[in-house]
């Protein structure tokens, strides 16, 4: 993070304007972009560490304000929510949250958040708050802690909360819809011609990063099979998926049970409302895993370079399909595709039928155990069944827990 002085008025995005003469806090990537678009228009002034006052729980009271911020993506922003809830519960401070304009709407109606601030934000916002918590780089931590712990646990630890003191349920980020939004979900289904009682399957067609994006051909094949079973299929995506959205419109031109939300150009908030009424959401390691998880919609997650365990293990009725190839999980972040090819070759081990079987399990069509004798099962974040561990693994774990209690 950097403190940057703005030398000319700059319109950033989605209505956010940076004013001349003010200092703003922003991530280095945004500063780079702005300096290219507005050469000479910005100037790095102070060190971020000069203004950052990391939270001190011993000094936190209900008269203090905590300012938590993370620019994006949406899943990463949502990982702050269990910490926010716990801070509110234990200390009742005023909570201010900063994030990019495109993700702010996801935090709407949250009873634990008193104010939201758009990033980049004026450094004055930091001066106004007693304590700060910055989450940039927590998941991308080069010390590899992120390779072993769930992202929510990392965020809790960053905030000084022992993650072991929370139940799995408390670690699920929550999204809140008001009554009008819940009603609008029903109206949207009627408007889209969805018959009451029909099965609705959502599918997120691309991840924000190419390395995590599942094969489009297989996604299309999954959609075709779901249509054969008379399901309604909702295609989720954002502005960056417009081209693939138009392609899918042409492909499924005559299919009345395909609802392409990409080309409807709906807002994030509307996407969240649509997700809330899905029977199952199929998604790669990306935003709709967490949106669905937060709304307790059953999920099928497609994972390659990150293990599903570190992203899904607290969600209810969630199935992660991991690619077990020699180079996975690779924990590669960023916005480049895999150096072995696109789509990432590891996804070749997941078949269309695997995905369908996971969906059928979640909607009680057909249980996975009838076709697949080998799978892992986790409850409350702990492994309870696996053909891949020694027989005495569970005994040893129980013994070590008893030893801890004693």
């Amino acid at each position, binding site marked *: 993070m950097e403190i940057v002085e703005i030398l000319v008025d700059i319109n950033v995005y989605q209505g956010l304007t940076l004013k001349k003469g003010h200092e703003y806090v922003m991530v280095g990537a945004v500063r780079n972009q702005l300096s290219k678009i507005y050469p000479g228009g910005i100037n790095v002034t102070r060190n971020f560490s000069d203004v950052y006052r990391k939270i001190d729980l011993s000094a936190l009271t209900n008269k203090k304000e905590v300012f938590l911020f993370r620019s994006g993506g949406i899943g990463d922003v949502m990982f702050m929510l269990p910490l926010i809830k716990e801070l509110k519960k234990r200390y009742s401070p005023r909570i201010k949250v900063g994030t990019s304009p495109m993700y702010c709407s996801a935090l709407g109606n949250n009873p634990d958040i008193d104010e939201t601030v758009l990033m980049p934000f004026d450094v004055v916002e930091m001066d106004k708050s007693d304590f700060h918590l910055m989450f940039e780089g927590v998941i991308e931590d080069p010390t590899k802690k992120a*390779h*072993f*712990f769930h992202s929510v646990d990392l965020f809790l630890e960053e905030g000084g909360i022992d993650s072991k003191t929370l139940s*799995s349920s408390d670690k699920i980020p929550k999204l809140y819809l008001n009554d009008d939004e819940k009603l609008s979900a029903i109206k949207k289904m009627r408007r889209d011609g969805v018959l009451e009682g029909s099965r609705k399957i959502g599918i997120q067609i691309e991840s924000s990063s190419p390395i995590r994006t599942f094969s489009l051909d297989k996604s299309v094949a999954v959609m075709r099979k779901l249509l054969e079973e008379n399901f309604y299929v909702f295609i989720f995506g954002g502005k960056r998926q417009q081209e693939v959205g138009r392609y899918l419109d042409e492909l499924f031109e005559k299919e009345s049970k395909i609802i392409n939300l990409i080309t409807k150009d709906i807002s994030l908030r509307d996407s969240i409302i649509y997700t809330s009424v899905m029977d199952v959401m199929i998604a790669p390691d990306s935003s709709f895993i967490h949106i669905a998880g937060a709304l307790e919609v059953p999920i099928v997650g497609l994972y390659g370079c990150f*293990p*599903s*365990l*570190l992203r*899904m*293990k*607290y*969600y*209810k*009725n*969630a*199935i*992660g*399909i*991991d*690619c*077990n*190839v*020699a*180079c*996975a*999980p690779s924990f590669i972040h960023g916005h480049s595709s895999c150096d*072995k*090819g696109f*789509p990432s*070759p*590891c996804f*070749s*081990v*997941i*078949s269309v039928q*695997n995905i369908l079987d*996971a969906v059928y*399990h979640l909607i*009680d069509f057909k249980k*996975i155990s009838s076709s*697949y004798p*080998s*799978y*892992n*099962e*986790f*409850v*409350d974040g702990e*492994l309870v069944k*696996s053909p*891949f*561990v020694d027989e005495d*693994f569970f005994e040893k774990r129980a013994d070590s827990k008893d030893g801890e209690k004693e």
Partner: protein
Amino acid sequence: MSVKEGVLTKKRKVHKRPAPKKKKKTFTKSPIEMERMIKSIVHDIVLPIEQRLNSLFLNIQNLKANVIASNTILEKTGVINREEFLKECEDYQKSEFSAASDDGTMDGVFVFSLYNMEN
């Protein structure tokens, strides 16, 4: 000797070849029937054996890949502590299994992980 256009040539003695002996047919099937028979042998016997061998080989590889790779994930995520697999996983990652084929595929398997099922 004969004279042809004023050139003296030597007449060659032509040896007649003996008439070829009729060979006894050892096969009673026509070429078409033979072709069908060979195809049938290949299809019904050779191919299944080849497929079974391939399948067996793949199953062994997949089983090994499944066990090692799943333990790799569980090891990397701290769910289990399997020191004896760590070296094996490193070797596995350096092996030919880490390469992608030209068609964009890779050796390996998938694994389901079920989280907090309520039904």
